[in-house]
């Protein structure tokens, strides 16, 4: 595969350096920050800028040479002679040389400014990816994945191209317009003024236009992201759409979003057209003036035909860069808005990360403790967990029951530190989970999530996701324990079957078992099953349970379930209500207690008639 061949010539350390460097400069303006960052490639950057200066000076000399050539043909008419012919050849030779050289320098300029852009893009992408992976659950809860993708694609692009389209172009324009103006004005003041008359107008117009375009573009981007979201959710939730015959409804949603965007897109076209047409027009008006006034000057004998011709060619050369002024302004505007968003993302505080003095987790006895744990979701007004305390030893099983929203998953998410407790602490073998390294902690705690997410890859790769080095045998054993092996072997491609997006081609229970197998590959000290057998029949579940009981002796197992048969064998069962433990004890103890657990048990075991009678 291509990806594996790439990049042998560099070390992994480089990638980490890039990421660290991208984080430098917090608090700086985005333009300054990206400029400094681009200069991390000093060799390429200075080549690009140096070449730009030389290339533009060479380009400016071309009209001069052409004018000189024309004058040489004119002198020849009056003072005929061999010398004139020779002079022409010389001019032509220089012209050729200058053209070739200009081409070469432009190549250097373009290539190296693009190259800086590509390198910066590569490095920022790494920093972005790294950040995505490090930001904690609460950040990802808040921010729509589509918005993150926009930052990682569009905003990053705006930023990475700033060197080429902003900085290098600034140098180019400064030289071309500055030196060009000086050359024109010093040749003939009046004609120079006329020739340059379009410059301020065009510069102003194109800057205004680009800024307007930029502003509308930002709105457009927002509208387009709404449109994108409508399309994406429609396709992602296609079964819901079909189940409710919501196609027309969805099309209306699409039309609303689409019409909005189309209108703005139209506006943009109009702004753009109005300006390009006007800019071209002003350029030609200035050219007409130069032709007229200059022509009269030639007639009056004040200047030569060659000078006039060189003025006119100058103008054609200046036309492009002057128009580009607008692009340059746009590039600044774009880089600064993109940069603001991108760096805001990059600088977002990582709520959950290693403390500087964090040490790897050391598991000895395997004791999990919750000590008066409180937790409130960021932005929520009511606490989700209120004073949770319990302890579990290796070999023990903790069962958790409770109504939807009572805080069971939240509790489980505190153990591998997907969220940090608001008060109290969670410890493993006496070590606060906040004091150990995340990597070691998460490798010791496996959570089979309630909401199964599978990757669009083979069954084998999905099972091995947490341990890509696992031996085939290990993967098969995990699948066997999860009661999935037989099913997999019945598939035409067996373990190489690609599961559809998020696992659509599997039944609900098969998805859950795959996700169980994925966790069984690991050798954690704490294993949490968060309602992960809800879609699995009791019999299959029973067999999964007996299969994994073999490894259960050296780990804490936590089972969250609604079906009491799933957790009645637990050593301790916690009954959660509104984030509080309202009952605790073994199955028998809780039955004897005759409280809420008992009521739940009755509901699940006794026939309806008995229930009605009992009430």
């Amino acid at each position, binding site marked *: 595969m291509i990806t*594996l061949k790439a*990049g042998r010539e560099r070390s992994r350390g480089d990638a*980490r350096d890039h990421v660290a460097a991208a*984080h430098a400069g917090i608090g700086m303006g985005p333009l300054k920050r990206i400029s400094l960052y681009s200069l991390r490639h000093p060799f390429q950057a200075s080549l690009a800028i140096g070449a730009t200066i030389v290339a533009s000076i060479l380009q400016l000399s071309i009209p001069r040479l052409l004018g000189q*050539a*024309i004058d040489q*043909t004119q002198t020849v008419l009056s003072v005929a002679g061999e010398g004139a012919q020779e002079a*022409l050849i010389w001019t032509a030779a220089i012209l*050729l040389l200058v*053209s070739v050289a200009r081409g070469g320098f432009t190549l250097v300029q373009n290539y190296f400014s*693009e190259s800086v852009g590509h*390198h910066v893009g590569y490095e920022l*992408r*790494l920093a*972005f990816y*790294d950040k*995505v992976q490090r930001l*904690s659950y609460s950040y990802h809860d808040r921010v*729509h994945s589509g918005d993150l*993708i926009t930052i*990682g694609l569009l905003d990053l692009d705006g930023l990475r191209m700033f060197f080429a389209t902003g900085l290098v172009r600034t140098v180019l324009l400064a030289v071309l317009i500055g030196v060009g103006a000086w050359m024109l004005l010093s040749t003939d003041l009046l004609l120079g003024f006329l020739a340059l008359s379009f410059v301020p107008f065009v510069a102003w117009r194109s800057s205004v236009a680009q800024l307007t375009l930029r502003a509308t573009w930002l709105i457009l981007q927002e509208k387009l992201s709404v449109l994108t979201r409508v*399309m994406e959710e429609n*396709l*992602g939730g*296609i079964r819901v759409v*079909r189940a*409710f015959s*919501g196609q*027309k*409804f*969805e099309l209306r949603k699409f039309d609303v979003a689409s019409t909005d965007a*189309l209108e703005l897109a139209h506006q943009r*076209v*109009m702004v*753009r*057209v109005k300006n390009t047409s006007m800019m071209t*027009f002003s350029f030609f*008006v200035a050219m007409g003036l130069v032709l007229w006034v200059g*022509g009269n000057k030639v007639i009056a004998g004040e200047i030569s*035909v060659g000078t006039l011709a060189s003025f006119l*060619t100058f103008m*054609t050369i200046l036309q492009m860069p002057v128009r580009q002024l607008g692009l340059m302004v746009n590039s600044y505007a774009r880089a600064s808005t993109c940069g603001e968003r991108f760096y805001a993302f990059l600088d977002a505080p990582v709520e959950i990360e290693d403390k500087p003095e964090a040490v790897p987790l050391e598991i000895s006895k395997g004791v999990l403790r919750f000590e008066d744990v409180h937790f409130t979701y960021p932005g929520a*007004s009511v606490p989700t967990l209120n004073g949770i305390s319990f302890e579990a030893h290796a070999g023990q099983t903790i069962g958790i029951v409770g*109504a*939807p929203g009572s805080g069971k998953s939240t509790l489980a998410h505190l153990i591998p530190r997907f969220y940090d407790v608001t008060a109290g602490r969670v410890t493993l073998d006496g070590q606060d989970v906040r004091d150990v390294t995340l*990597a070691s902690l*998460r490798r010791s705690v496996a959570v089979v999530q309630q909401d199964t997410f599978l*990757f669009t890859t083979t069954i084998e*790769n999905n099972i091995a*996701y947490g341990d*890509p080095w696992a031996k085939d045998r290990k993967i098969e054993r995990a699948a066997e324990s999860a009661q999935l092996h037989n099913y997999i072997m019945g598939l035409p491609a067996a373990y190489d079957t690609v599961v559809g997006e998020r696992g659509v081609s599997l039944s*609900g*229970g*098969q998805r859950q078992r795959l996700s169980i197998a994925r966790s069984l590959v690991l050798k954690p000290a704490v294993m949490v099953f968060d309602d992960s057998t*809800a*879609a699995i*029949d*009791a019999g299959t579940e029973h067999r999964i349970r007996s299969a994994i009981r073999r490894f259960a002796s050296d780990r804490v197992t936590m089972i969250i379930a*609604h079906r009491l048969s799933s957790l009645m064998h637990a050593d301790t069962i916690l009954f959660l209500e509104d984030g509080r433990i309202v009952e605790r004890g073994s199955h028998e103890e809780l039955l004897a207690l005759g409280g809420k657990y008992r009521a739940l048990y009755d*509901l699940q075991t006794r026939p309806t008639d008995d229930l009605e009678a009992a009430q």
Partner: protein
Amino acid sequence: MSVVQEDERDVAAFPGQRPPRASVGSHRVEEEVFGKAYDPKTVRRIWAYVKPYRLKIYLSVAAVLVFTATQLAIPLIIGNAIDTGLVAGGDPAALTWAVGAFAIAVLFNFAASWVQETQVGQVAEHVLFDMRRAMFAQLQAVSLSYMDKTEVGRLMSRLQGDVNSMQEFLETSVISVGDLVLLFGIVAVLLSLDPWLGLLTLITMPVLFIIRIFWLPPAKRAFWAAHETNSLTAGAMAEGINGVRTVQNLDRQKVNFDLYDDKAYHNLRTQLTGSKYAQVMVPIVDSLTGISMATVVVVGGAMVLNGNLQVGVIVAFLFYIQRFFDPIRSLTMQYSIMQRAMTSGRRIIEVMDLPTVIEDKPGAISLTGAMDGSVEFRDVVFGYDPKRPVLKNVSFKVNPGETVAVIGPTGSGKTSAMALVHRFYEVQSGAVVVGGHDVRDITQESLGEQVAMVLQEPFLFTGTIFENIRYNKASATRDDVIAAAKAVGAHDFIARFANGYDTMLEQRGSNLSLGQRQLLSFARALVADAKILVLDEATANIDSYTERQIQKALEILLAGRTGMVIAHRLATIRGADRIIVLQNGEKIEEGNHDQLMELGGLYSKLYNMNYSSFDDIPDEMVAQANAKAAST
């Protein structure tokens, strides 16, 4: 700050080695980007979207021609001004005439460029939106068996990337008509001004053509590779974002970072190669321009010197030379754009041509709330892969107003059977009959209105809780929504939010617990007010307590409606009138609670064992049950 964690597993056991079975992003390789540049079939189909705007297109082509004509004229006018007005003492009147002509040309130029750009720009935007809408509409009808196999990201790239490259093509193609005319115009003008000098100057043109012919194939490959690696990198990034919770959960960050680094670095290399190919043409074009200019200066100069040529012609020549590589450059660019557009066009058409498979028959019946609400499976055979049936000759009938439970081990085909009631898929043989009509004779829309489903996996849209519960039932009032929420026991937790029913849900409802999401999707099905209610594990993530309350509320709400309930928790189906037991896609038992208990088969055994498994039942018992079912 340590940015990336060291991973002991990696370093210890496999120093520096890539993990054998890990990847980020999908390993799909996009179809070739550069195909034929002209494919009449594709063009004809795409033309259908342009046709409504053809008058605008004709207008802008006309404007482009005028625009090109003025571009051709301007150097001529300047040259003429020099020759008639300036040399040999000068002629102010001729100069004034020339400047007048120049002014007229400029006015035309202005008007033409205005017309052309507004028309083309707007048409291109319109076509873009039209095509996107047509595709989106088509995707609403495409059969689920296709959608199951296709990644959302891939469809999104059709809806965005491909339509954009069509737009780019439309915008540039009108301009390239102008370029083509300009190219021939320049050649014609140069040759007519002075055939010899013209020929000499134009020699560089075929040279450029030849160079480009050699340059194009490798350059195309390089651009294609750059495009390809770029979208692969973007895909890997999107996957990293969407799966971030799982990545952190399984501590895959470090491995993924390294894999992503490989992809991004490979992308960097191909981008640089692409840049090289793009930029290498610059000095070539510049040198050729230099050669042409030098030729004009030397040869043309000598001719002026001999009095065979006027100096204004040289000026005009020099002006043209500066321009005449532009059309060649943009035309060859246009060629690639066109190739890309053809490929995009083919992909767009591919989407538009996707088999809907499931279509309303002409004269299909529209189901109304007046139908009886019965559901019948007649010898249904169905498989996602026709060779491997998931349902094998399943027959049963649900009478009007009945509630029937479908139970069976995981993967036995329960969800698939329910999908058939809604005609998500077409049966291979047999028939599914709803309200007395084969589902194939019913319009899909009316079927959807009469069958409400709670899907096994709750899906919520970004938006408020209210919008989610109401979904497409525009006639539902706020009270209806609240009543449904109360019935499923969701009202309490909704009311606890500061904004109540107007609380915004995050993506897929991630700020709710899974059970809460399930309750909302349950409420959504109630609001739909359908005759038949299908509950696929609708209470799997809900405690029995809440479930019992829901059941009680439903008894009143669903009086006279038909219900089909799938559940693994046997307590859930207690209220069912009849129970159907599926195993391996076969119906092995059917009857009401008492009948099944009396039968002494699977169900009774299960019921008595209460927590035992379907699979614990010996095979002979299954066979026995089957035999019994066959004989009755």
